[in-house]
């Protein structure tokens, strides 16, 4: 069987146009963007062109975009910066139980440093309640960090409503936009966020590059020190070519967003229909989720055996996020959704799809899953 990759939420293949753009530029534009000579200037132009593209895509100004090495760096930078700038105004942070580890582990670290963190629960559909946010807010809350789209089951969180609530509060608002950027409409002004992080390799761009939006006027403390790059917000020679590749990936996504969304909805539907051949739970919410992620739990199967068997027949899916590297820990996201049903978090399979996924792939994937679950 031809191998099928249904793990696009972990990472995506690079789009051929992105590879083409990068290979072309790599040999031509290699100056250091900080150099004042023409080699440097043309490299800088490349960086700034992507910066403008990102700014336009999220309704920000180019000066509000800081390039990073990816989502983890963006999340870390935003949170550490926010608590540092606000540390005289309180020590309370609000986040959710279903964040990515690049947010959760930062919060745990901050707890050790004396900050108090409220980890908001989610309902059975995976949504944070706006009421809960309201109730958790205290005068000494300095930061609220909530992801826009959950990476394990795709629920879109009510960021705009939360932004409204926070508008009258001192707390800064960070949104992990890694799974949302380019996939759903995203306007930082409308959402009233102070920080938003994104990564290129989730949208068919290269790994090792991402951006952090920092709202104008919000105090900022860098994590990485050295040269004067990124207006002193992120030292280090700019990753010129990858930044250009990221720009290309955004361009491709923007051009094809409707098509991609339609395709993903269709694949999602096919998977759901085909899986009806076996008893299962759908963990992704029916409404209010991105169409490219479908999380499913099965009864009484060993997830390790299931994944191994799926892998042997050439089907690449994951149990949770790739980033809980190397182990099959029960999904913290599912645990949060079903605190009373331990099994459900143990036996979860995430199908995530995108560029190159065909209807045939989806059918085969579902059938193989059923076959193996039954066998096990």
């Amino acid at each position, binding site marked *: 069987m031809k*191998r099928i*990759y249904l*793990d696009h939420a*972990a*990472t*995506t*293949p690079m789009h051929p146009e992105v*590879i083409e753009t990068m290979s072309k530029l*790599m*040999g031509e534009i290699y*100056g*250091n963007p*900080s*150099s*004042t*000579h*023409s*080699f440097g200037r043309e490299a800088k132009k490349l960086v700034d062109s992507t910066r403008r593209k990102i700014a336009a895509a999220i309704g920000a100004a180019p000066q509000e975009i800081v390039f990073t*090495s*990816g*989502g*983890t*760096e963006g999340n*870390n930078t935003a949170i550490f910066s926010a608590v540092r700038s606000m540390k005289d105004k309180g020590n309370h942070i609000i986040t959710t139980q279903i964040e*990515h*580890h*690049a947010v959760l*582990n930062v919060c745990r670290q901050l707890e050790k440093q004396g900050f108090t963190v409220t980890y908001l629960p989610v309902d059975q559909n995976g949504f944070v309640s706006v009421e809960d946010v309201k109730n958790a807010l205290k005068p000494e809350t300095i930061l609220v960090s909530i992801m826009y789209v959950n990476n394990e089951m795709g629920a879109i969180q009510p960021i705009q409503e939360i932004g409204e609530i926070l508008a009258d509060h001192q707390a800064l608002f960070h949104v992990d936009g890694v799974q949302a950027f380019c996939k759903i409409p995203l306007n930082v002004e409308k959402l009233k966020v102070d920080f938003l992080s994104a990564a290129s*390799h989730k949208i068919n761009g*290269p*790994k*090792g*590059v991402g951006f952090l939006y920092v709202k104008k006027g919000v105090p900022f403390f860098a*994590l*990485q*020190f*050295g*040269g*004067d*790059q990124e207006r002193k917000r992120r*030292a*280090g*020679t*700019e*990753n*010129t*070519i*990858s930044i250009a590749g990221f720009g290309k990936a955004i361009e491709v996504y923007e051009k094809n967003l409707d098509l991609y969304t339609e395709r993903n909805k269709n694949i999602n539907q096919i998977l759901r229909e085909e899986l009806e051949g076996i008893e299962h739970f759908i963990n992704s919410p029916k409404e209010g989720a991105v169409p490219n992620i479908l999380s499913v739990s099965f009864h009484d199967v060993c997830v390790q055996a299931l*994944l191994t068997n799926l*892998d042997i027949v*050439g*089907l*690449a899916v*994951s149990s949770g996020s*790739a*980033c*809980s*590297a*190397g182990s*099959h820990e029960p999904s913290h996201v599912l645990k949060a959704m079903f605190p009373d049903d331990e099994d459900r978090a143990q036996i979860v399979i995430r199908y995530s799809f995108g560029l190159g996924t065909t209807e045939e792939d989806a059918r085969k994937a579902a059938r193989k899953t059923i076959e193996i679950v039954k066998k096990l």
Partner: protein
Amino acid sequence: MIYLDNSATTKPDRSVLESYTKISTDFWANPSSMHQFGGEAGQLVERARSQAASILGVNTSEIIFTSGGTESNNIAIKGIAIQYANRGNHIITSKIEHPSVREPFEQLAENGFRVTYLPVDLDGRISVDDLKNAMTEETILVSVMHVNNEIGTIQPIEEIGAIINKYPKCFFHVDGIQGFGKVPLDLVKSKVDLYSLSAHKFYGLKGTGLLYVRDAIQVASLLAGGNQERRIRSGTVNVAGAVSVAKAMRVSMEKYNKYLSKMKEMHSFLYRELSEINGIVMNSPLAGCAPHIVNFSIPELNNEVFARTLEEKQIYVSTTSACSSKTRALSKVVSELGKGDKVAGSSVRLSLSFETTQEEIETALEVIRESIEKLSELKK
């Protein structure tokens, strides 16, 4: 077109580009994923890790892939200081480090660490005796660059390592960013504990680099998340980037073996010819200088105007390190040589690659002579 700014960045080698492109096309999975796609990507990263380790003469597990030299330096310095703060609060560095070392030290100083900045002599070299005198039982970190990025001075890393080795609580970090592939350094023999590299300085790609962290050493991570890279550096591993780092290291060593003597000859020639030009003060040392950097000052002239004059003739040089080009001021490094503000404010750096030819050097020299003459005329 003559590009003499290879210390700012180098033109990536074709084979490095090819390997990056190939990996991006065929092996783009997340190496943390447990399926075959992830497994293959992971294997490639591990192979790159072992290649990098073997070139450096260290263990595979000691290589941490990063987003570049600045990140490597930041992790090494802040990671050690935070991790071992309970052992002591004294840290040592030199006065001529790159900003990506200097600034983390300044940040640590603001957070209660006592920092000793070692001075340098006229050649830009720290004194081993100064280091001996500065070491205390409270010292937990010494960070000294192998080769200075502005003037090319090689520091006595092995001697420094021998001194630090007498203090079991103290770690030794070397910023190897300008040295790798041009000046040999035996990390094990020199008792180096941490060593930073940036691939775009040796024919690799921007946004890629590594940090050597000796096995027994814990480093507090600056990024929390998925715990990749020995828990030292969270974040999806840049597979194609990591492979391209190892490739660039190999390419760089091949070029080194093939062209080092040629580069050394050109370097001596360039140095000699420049020092004979009226109005030029040499900043790079005559002995103990890396073979790819020559730095001089033109105290009576404006170095920015001079660089632009060269650029009109398609000769590309730099006036200070690229990382601080935007802030026009005295060169911090040249200032520390103690030759006065006029010299420190008018420095020019030429940096060669293994591809630079004798002919290019001769053309550049000619244009330099003409430009100095012309600008001196204008001044009168």
